[in-house]
């Protein structure tokens, strides 16, 4: 296994609030890795640092052996990292197909080739029959899927998914899990997901990182994580009790 992404002792403060402190982990090419933790644990901040939205205050992030911290989001994407947004951001007035076309055109200048690629992805992700609809007409589960499709169209080696299961019904969650697993197996795309839905995490992730108050409190296989006393105390237990 080769290392695809290395996050080394990164930290981020927001005007005195320590959002992320000394977080390190690394991703192997081809694996599915989940980051979990209570609200406010710093998951999205961590995610945004990898995606180039913020530069870390300390530490480094390396992708394929090259530092990417401090790059702009578009530069990060061009290196091969695709992302989704927790609160979906489709291009509302464009059709589903054209939304995905935008992503596919990043590495293709031929319109016909981009359209073929968009169709391929839409069929993988069960949206092909809705390709003529405006994105604003889609339901939330479909928008979440469109978010994934658009990111996939940029041909990423690493796919960052920010709570793509949130707001989905259990059957829809299972379908998304199935789609992601198939993608991972057929294309070898590495997936880093932030997720609250433990059903999805347990089914998908090979390794899990648990954040709490901006720091790592546990890392390991999903089976070990759910039995970890610190994790139960700070996250799972709280959720079960609440």
């Amino acid at each position, binding site marked *: 296994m080769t290392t695809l992404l290395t996050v080394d002792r990164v930290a981020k403060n927001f005007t005195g609030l320590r959002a992320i402190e000394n977080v390190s982990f690394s991703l192997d090419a081809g694996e599915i890795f989940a980051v979990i933790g209570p609200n406010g644990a710093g998951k999205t901040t961590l995610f945004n640092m990898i995606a180039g939205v913020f530069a870390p205050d300390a530490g480094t992030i390396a992708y394929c052996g090259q530092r990417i911290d401090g790059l702009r989001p*578009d530069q990060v994407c061009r290196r091969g990292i695709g992302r989704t947004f927790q609160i979906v951001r489709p291009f509302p007035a464009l059709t589903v197909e054209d939304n995905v076309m935008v992503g596919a055109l990043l590495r293709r200048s031929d319109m016909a080739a981009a359209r073929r690629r968009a169709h391929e992805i839409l069929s993988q992700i069960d949206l092909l029959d809705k390709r003529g609809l405006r994105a604003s007409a889609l339901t939330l589960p479909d928008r979440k899927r469109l978010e994934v499709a658009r990111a996939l169209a940029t041909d990423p080696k690493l796919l960052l998914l920010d709570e793509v299961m949130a707001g989905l019904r259990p059957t829809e969650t299972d379908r998304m899990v199935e789609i992601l697993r198939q993608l991972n197996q057929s294309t070898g795309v590495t997936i880093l997901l932030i997720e609250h839905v433990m059903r999805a995490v347990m089914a998908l992730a090979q390794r899990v990182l648990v954040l709490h108050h901006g720091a790592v409190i546990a890392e390991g296989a999903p089976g070990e994580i759910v039995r970890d006393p610190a994790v139960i105390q700070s996250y799972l237990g709280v959720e079960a009790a609440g």
Partner: protein
Amino acid sequence: MMGRLLDGVSKRVLIGLFTVFAALIIAPLFANDYLLTILILILYFAYTGQAWNIMMGFAGQLSLGHAIYVGLGAYTTAALYVHFGIGPWIGMAAAVAVAVVCGAIIGFLAFRFGVGGVYFAILTIAFAEFFRIGFDHFKWVGGSAGFFLPVANYASNDLWNLRGNPAMFYYVLLAMTSGAFILCHILLRSRMGYFWQAIREDEQAARALGIDTFRYKMYAVVISAGMTSISGVLFAFYYNNLFPEQIFHISRSIELILAPIIGGVGTLFGPIIGAFLLTGLAEALHEAMNALGFDAPGAKQVFYGICLLFVVMVLPDGVWPPLKKALRLNPHESDRGKS
């Protein structure tokens, strides 16, 4: 090339376009001078609206100072003609260059420092005001007293020097408007067109898909500015007089964005339909009031305003999108039939 240009365009659209174009070509044979003047005005607004639409309709950057580019185009060519005897077609190249540089400076200042939305619009107004006041004191081109092109009574049309009768200007504008329409059609369906629309819809999401948003916004400003300056060239040689208080005035900037707004922002037909409706409406009101013998000052403007208000309220996306639906010209339906 031709096949590619027409790719995905339905037969109904082509027949419609051809009919309108043919009608516009033979129009001067039947139109009297008054009607021809109105048609020239319509084409001027259609062309300029199309150019503005690239920035706002395609890339989502609201410019309320597009009079800058009209003015710069007009003054550059007029000055070259009057002072150095350089013809308008060569002057046009200089005009485009000047407008492109000006657009690039405004774009760079705004986009480099993250000025967006209404603040960008205010910046464009500020620049237009800067040029208005600047040209008031620019004695080389007449300052506030105005700059005049020599008017001679030419027996024949001199296309090379753009001296001639209204029909010649009409055909030049018709060619420009058609060219702009085709160019916008190509742009909108190009890779750049997709990136522009992504930026317009959600800039942050566009950036996350790897689009260098700064670069593509700069392209939009520069192309739009260059195209707009050409309408300034026509303005100068058609009217033969230029006043900074007129050409750079904010009312000019507003006037030239009305056609695409009424017709449909971001659509190819919007600026053209809007120009026909608005200019037609203004003239029809004028005629109707004359016929009724009602000539209270400002009444025409009030009616004009009410009509605009009505269109904006009833058709918030402009006239073209619902019209397109009514005429069943939706491209996606034909696409679906094909694949």
